[in-house]
């Protein structure tokens, strides 16, 4: 099986940069959301469409990122 339609883009989620990686494998779309720095995985979603996979991954990323505290320096 070959992955198809690989794409990668960065999205701003409440002030945090999130990297969205999406590709199609067989009949399913796979999306992974990472924080850009350092690149740790926030969400991995499999869905029937690109739009569904990416929106669910972003929703999960948003939920996790909302827990991150910014401290004064």
């Amino acid at each position, binding site marked *: 099986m070959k992955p198809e339609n690989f794409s990668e883009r960065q999205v701003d989620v409440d002030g*945090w940069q999130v990297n969205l990686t999406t590709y199609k494998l067989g009949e399913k779309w796979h999306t992974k959301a990472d924080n850009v720095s350092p690149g740790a995985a926030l969400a991995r979603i499999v869905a029937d469409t690109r739009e569904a996979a990416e929106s669910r991954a972003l929703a999960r990323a948003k939920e996790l990122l909302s827990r991150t505290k910014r401290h004064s320096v």
Partner: protein
Amino acid sequence: MSASYAHPEVLADSGWVESHAKDANVRVVEVDVDTKAYDEGHVPGAIAWAWNTQLCDTVVRDILPKAAFEALMTQSGIGNDTTVVLYGDNNNWFAAWAFWQMKIYGHKDVRIMDGGRKKWLAESRDVDTAATKPAAGATAYQATEPDYSLRAFLPQVQQAQKSVSAVMIDVRSPQEFSGEILAPPGLPETCQRGGHIPGARSVPWGKACNDDGTFKSASELEKLYGAEGVVQSKPVIAYCRIGERSSHTWFVLKYLLGVGNVMNYDGSWTEWGNLVGAPVEKGGAKSVGQA
């Protein structure tokens, strides 16, 4: 330093891996940040190691003990003479962690697939979804005694910080370095204090990679690290939060740039940022020579 990689033999390109992944003397291993990635699809013939259960001591905070490392190799069908090719997601972040441990235990031929999982997928190369079940090695694997010249422990780091006897490279994000956040965005905080080891230079690990996940050229890497005071004549200690990101930088410095004395401080900020009385510096990166 030179204009080409010091040890190009530690890199395998995806084309080579596609041709040789199922060779009898080759074992391809996927090591991901997200341990579910392998199940979605992997290089045909590759096995997977989970960094959080198989590449560490799960009781004591430590790398794999020697006997456990030997058992993992034997169970993975890896002999002392096997060519091991490691790859993973996020620009081979955790593949580098596995590479570092394999070198600590003296494995001779271990390589990283340049570009990792991302490049393989982007190139639309075949993937398998069924897990590969390796035949156990014909003979038991024998590791060397651990080479701790590749690893920095807390007393060495404290001494180096006091005496400024090593270049300290903090490879975390600028926001972790400054103290604005205590963990990567979206992940749990694992330290009591934010900031960095006084005197450390900030070079986020991902700067060593191109957009396609491959490593930058030797000349680009020389420029990147040279600007932060890395020279052949001085020891370098790389650290991050728990030692994985810094193993990537350790790999780049030691094997791509050929810096002679590079150690990975895997205690990292989770150790230093929780120590009572440890000196901490806050704020953004300064240029070399700036107080």
